[in-house]
């Protein structure tokens, strides 16, 4: 019980606490007037909010589309298409996130929405691929046993295929979220805001205090999310 609390609340709070202390210190003790102007609570909260929206919206969409798409591609009638899509997805994942954002900027222009859209598309890839691979990897004899006992195809999907593929789907989600947090920090380059804003501003005005605060916040968000999903992952599989 104590351990659970410590793992799920204790450690995250410590991480947040350290970064929060750093921000409070920096805002209250600016090294000069530029830092004073550029690093305010208001601004910090604004970029956090933007960052959270970027993540939340793009990941929600990507999860829905990725899982549904992966399920659809794993159906026997679409199976061959699934293999093709898998190859395309693998190539798509090789393309660096900054290139994706830059290309979307040339097509759709600047702004938060464009950034969300690019992140959304980019995050679909690992989720889609892992959902497909996870379902595809379920031993066929298991499916056949279920069919032979008279289970409905839909029940086989929800009771057998998805639960067995679940750890792999979660792993895809974890990959997607790590990539997404990283790419979200780049959204600022195409006017999408987010935590990258502080870093880029700091680099532009050459003020280490701003850079450090921005980088610490970005690192915190990524490490924290990865940590929490990793811990959740450990609990997912009790059967192997």
């Amino acid at each position, binding site marked *: 019980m104590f351990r659970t609390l410590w793992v799920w609340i204790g450690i995250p709070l410590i991480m947040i606490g350290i970064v929060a202390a750093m921000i409070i210190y920096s805002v209250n003790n600016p090294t000069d007037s530029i830092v004073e102007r550029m690093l305010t609570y208001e601004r910090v909260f604004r970029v956090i909010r933007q960052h959270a929206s970027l993540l939340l919206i793009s990941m929600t969409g990507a999860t829905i589309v990725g899982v549904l798409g992966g399920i659809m591609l794993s159906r026997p009638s679409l199976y061959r298409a699934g293999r093709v899509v898998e190859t395309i997805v693998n190539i798509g994942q090789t393309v660096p996130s900054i290139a994706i954002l830059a290309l979307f900027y040339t097509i759709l222009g600047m702004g938060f929405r464009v950034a969300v859209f690019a992140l959304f598309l980019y995050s679909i890839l690992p989720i889609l691929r892992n959902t497909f691979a996870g379902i595809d990897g379920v031993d066929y004899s298991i499916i056949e*046993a279920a069919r032979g006992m008279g289970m409905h195809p839909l029940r086989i999907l929800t009771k057998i295929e998805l639960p067995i593929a679940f750890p792999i789907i979660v792993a895809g989600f974890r990959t997607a979220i790590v990539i997404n947090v990283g790419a979200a920090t780049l959204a600022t380059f195409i006017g999408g805001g987010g935590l990258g804003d502080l870093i880029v501003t700091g680099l532009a005005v050459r003020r280490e205090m701003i850079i450090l605060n921005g980088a610490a916040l970005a690192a915190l968000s990524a490490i924290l999310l990865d940590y929490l999903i990793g811990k959740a992952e450990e609990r997912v599989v*009790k059967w192997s």
Partner: protein
Amino acid sequence: MIKVEGLTKVFPGQTIPAVKDLNLEIKEGDVCVLVGPSGCGKTTTMKMINRLYEPTGGKVYIRGEDHMKIDPIKLRLDIGYVIQEIGLFPHMTIYENIATVPNEKKWPREKTKEKVEELMHLVGLDPEIFQNRYPTALSGGQRQRVGVARAMVSDPPIMLMDEPFGAVDPITRARLQNEFLRIQERMSKTIVFVTHDIDEAIKMSDTIAVMNEGELIQHDTPSDLLSAPADEFVANLVGRHRSIKRLHLIRVHEILKEVDRTEPLTEDAKKEEVEKQLEDSDLRTVIVVDRDNKLKGVIGASDLKRKAGEVAGDYCHEVSDTVTDDATLNDALSVMLECGVGYVAVVNEDEMYQGTITLGDLLNVVREDS
């Protein structure tokens, strides 16, 4: 109960049929064993019966009803199916695995629980110990038991069992076979049982259907098959040592009536009695039972020399292996060979001593036959 007419399966992209014009009739309560080399179409035949594969041609009648007219889901829910690869669901506990069909049929929870526990006892898995385990924590033999229990739990009148004892060592396999026969005696289901092992086929079946390259070669009772193989292929399959194979067909209690052997001694027998019987008996061993006629042990000449005691019960030594009276003669033979002695004591289910058979008795059976 099951009637197969001209059943044929050609897989897409193949020209040679995997199963060709198969005709078969299985009576209610019978165990029909499909036997044949691997790849001869046994699994394909089974899967056509429960419509996992759609037949290319021919008909299957279940209780006189064309099975293509029955909803496949309903059909399968009423046919227990043990898949060759076992196919346990790795993310479900043993309990949940066995409860699959009841859950599909939306049984009330109490009834499911009762039935699952009953089945676990039936296949020899203690629910207390096993119900919350996952399949990965089981041995091969235990998994196969779960597979059988899962197929039987809703009491389907028909069972399809595809090499259900394939993945276990010979000793466990023999034990599972005997358990199966005991269960079947009570349940009287109509069973199609697949194996590639002719000995298993002879032991388990009421009728044997020999298949080769997709075709049915011969469908007969085991003893007819052994005495009159239809062709070279069947003769080769049953092997040259057919008379020895008959040992699979005969149960111990059947020959026990015929052998005439001295009565066992009770544990309070005097030394002179023991000595006398040692000399008279063709076993060169004395069987000792207790007052309830339970087997107590045996006395050999060396026991008599080494340890002297007042009564036989004091110096008899325990026997490590016995056979039950419903075991086959072949089982008896293996025990003798394993223990390196020329006899084996027979007990019934309650461990009451029934008699003793010797290697000589077995030889007589084989000789009579040929």
